[in-house]
């Protein structure tokens, strides 16, 4: 019977094209707005660490003095990063920060490219499951004995070396030669959870260099630098020994037991640091958070987004109320035909189903058109407001979500009109037709 009802629905839609277009428009606009906000919300809410989310932890230290920040800072100081690297409880760990520089090769035809550079340890790549196209991360020994080695992303490799295996080739960062040891295979997690301070939805850096080169090369921080007391940090050398927070620190811990062990170990480190006068706040402590909590803590998904999704859902409800009115008018106009169908053997349930299939079809059309609205709206947002592409690209799941929401919403709106028409007394219309 479903296909019979579908056939009747198509005929009914063709019979009243204006009313049908109005209903499809009503629901499509509601769906378009809902899907637009939902898409942004969903893209912002993705946990890019996947299954490893509960194994990776951001480390925060309350190293600020009294009468300073009243919460943990998302970043830590260089000296704490340097010291925490000595811990042997984490399976992997890495300090990091964002810098940048002019990138060149031996090719004189290639103009220097200004690129963001991530300064980190070799564990970074395995800790965040970074895939390699060619080569690998620099050796772990480089984390202690600095070497001018570099890992680049596939896009940059394409630009600099035409996409070929560039392992062993040389590139220059701020005119210093670095040997390419690995090429990352198009890796750019969204949100960029490992460093939400520098634009949670920005692309990953194209260049990665050893952390051990920091004091030698005196890389400038291109990220947030937060201080809680007056210090002269104009030089990198001064900044390295300062109390300024400008590095991110991540560890990989096996299980809850290791989380507790590591927390205790860091607390003992804090106690040691209190002797020379650091960590003198009564709140001095460590806080470690897995990826999911980290994204919430840093409000990667802004509260406004949730409100926006709620508002768009309310707008969809308004569209559905309009649709309900139109459906009621359309269905009740058809009551005489329903009377005939009832008289010749259709049950209420069959009449109800027939009308719900029609409503579902309208909802489906509304969903598809709504998806096109959403795609247009996202493109407009990307073009006019320069929102990150990660947020404005239409997620594939929306091709399923939009029709599902549209059909479900339309069915809800259709229940009352369909019930009204199937529960009318057929005999009234049989005589009067």
């Amino acid at each position, binding site marked *: 019977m479903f296909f*019979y009802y579908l056939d009747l629905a198509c005929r009914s839609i063709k*019979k009243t094209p204006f009313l049908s277009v109005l209903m499809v428009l009503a629901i499509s606009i509601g769906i378009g707005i809902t899907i637009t906000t939902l898409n942004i919300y969903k893209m912002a809410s993705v946990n890019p660490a996947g299954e490893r989310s509960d194994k990776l932890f951001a480390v925060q230290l309350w190293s600020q003095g009294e009468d300073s920040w009243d919460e943990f800072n998302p970043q830590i100081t260089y000296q704490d990063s340097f010291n925490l690297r000595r811990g042997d409880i984490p399976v992997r760990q890495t300090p990091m920060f964002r810098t940048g520089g002019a990138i060149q090769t031996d090719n004189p035809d290639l103009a220097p490219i200004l690129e963001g550079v991530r300064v980190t340890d070799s564990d970074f790549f395995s800790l965040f499951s970074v895939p390699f196209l060619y080569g690998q991360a620099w050796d772990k020994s480089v984390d202690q004995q600095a070497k001018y080695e570099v890992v680049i992303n596939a896009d940059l490799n394409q630009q600099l070396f035409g996409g070929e295996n560039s392992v062993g080739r040389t590139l220059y960062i701020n005119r210093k030669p670095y040997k390419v040891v690995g090429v990352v295979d198009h890796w750019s997690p969204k949100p960029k959870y490992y460093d939400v301070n520098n634009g949670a939805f920005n692309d990953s850096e194209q260049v990665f260099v050893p952390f051990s080169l920091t004091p030698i090369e005196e890389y400038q921080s291109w990220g947030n630098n937060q201080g809680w007391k007056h210090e002269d940090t104009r030089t990198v050398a001064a900044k390295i020994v300062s109390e300024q927070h400008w590095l991110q620190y991540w560890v990989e811990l096996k299980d809850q037991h290791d989380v507790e062990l590591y927390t205790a170990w860091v607390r003992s480190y804090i106690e040691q640091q209190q002797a020379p006068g650091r960590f003198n706040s009564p709140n001095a402590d460590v806080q470690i958070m897995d990826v999911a909590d980290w994204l919430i803590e840093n409000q990667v998904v802004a509260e406004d987004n949730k409100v926006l999704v709620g508002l768009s859902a309310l707008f969809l409800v308004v569209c559905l109320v309009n649709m309900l009115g139109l459906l009621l008018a359309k269905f009740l106009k058809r009551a005489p035909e329903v009377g*005939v169908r*009832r008289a010749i053997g259709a049950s209420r349930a*069959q009449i109800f189903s027939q009308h719900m299939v029609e409503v579902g079809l309208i909802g489906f059309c509304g969903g598809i058109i709504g998806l096109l609205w959403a795609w247009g709206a996202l493109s407009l947002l990307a073009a006019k407001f320069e929102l990150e592409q990660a947020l404005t690209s239409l997620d594939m799941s929306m091709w399923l979500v939009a029709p599902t929401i549209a059909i479900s919403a339309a069915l809800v709106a259709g229940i009352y009109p369909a019930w009204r028409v199937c529960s009318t007394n057929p005999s009234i219309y049989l005589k009067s*037709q």
Partner: protein
Amino acid sequence: MLSMKNINKVFKTDLVETHALRDFNLEVKEGEFVAVTGPSGSGKTTFLNIAGLLEGFTNGDYFLDGVNISNLSDNKSAAIRNEKIGFIFQGFNLIPDLNLAENVEVPLRYRGFSRSERDKRVKQALEQVGLGARMKHLPAQLSGGQQQRVAIARALAGEPRFLLADEPTGNLDSMMARQVMELLEDINKAGTTIIMVTHDPELARRAQRNIQIVDGQVCDFTMYQGGQPQLVSDNVQAVS
């Protein structure tokens, strides 16, 4: 075949109670052709709606083909209407967007027949009413008499035991009315029980039995071809 005992139908509003049928008693045997007459507002249509399970009744007993109709679920009522009852209406009540074959097919769809069975029955029913060649026409392309014949074909397609006709010739001219009446007589001769509401005394006389309803009560007369009506009810009401 059809047995109604002490059927009452009361329409209630806040202020008034209207008795559409009052202690209504009727027996119709299988194969009968019964004409129902009566003044406007006497309860003819209410009787037909109750007989066709389109309306419930306030109290009383109604048996159709041995089945007690009181308190049947909507699904059961629909199934009985579909399988045992055929309806013919004064206004034809064809669905304007469906062609003749699709109109005739509607009750067969609800009964769940296969496509081949539906096609066979539709063809057979339309040929029976002389419209086998116009299966793809829309109702609007036919005359009133032809539309009524399609309605009869729709009623016949399900091979009902029992046809309910509500002024089937009311919207037709005399020639078409005669043709439709002849068709109904043929159907009755083939064994289908027919109850026909009519205002036309000539048509009523062609039925085997004539029932007059007045003020929601039945006056039962047997009519014999060519003779005078013989009163069989104690409820004495003359038939014109």
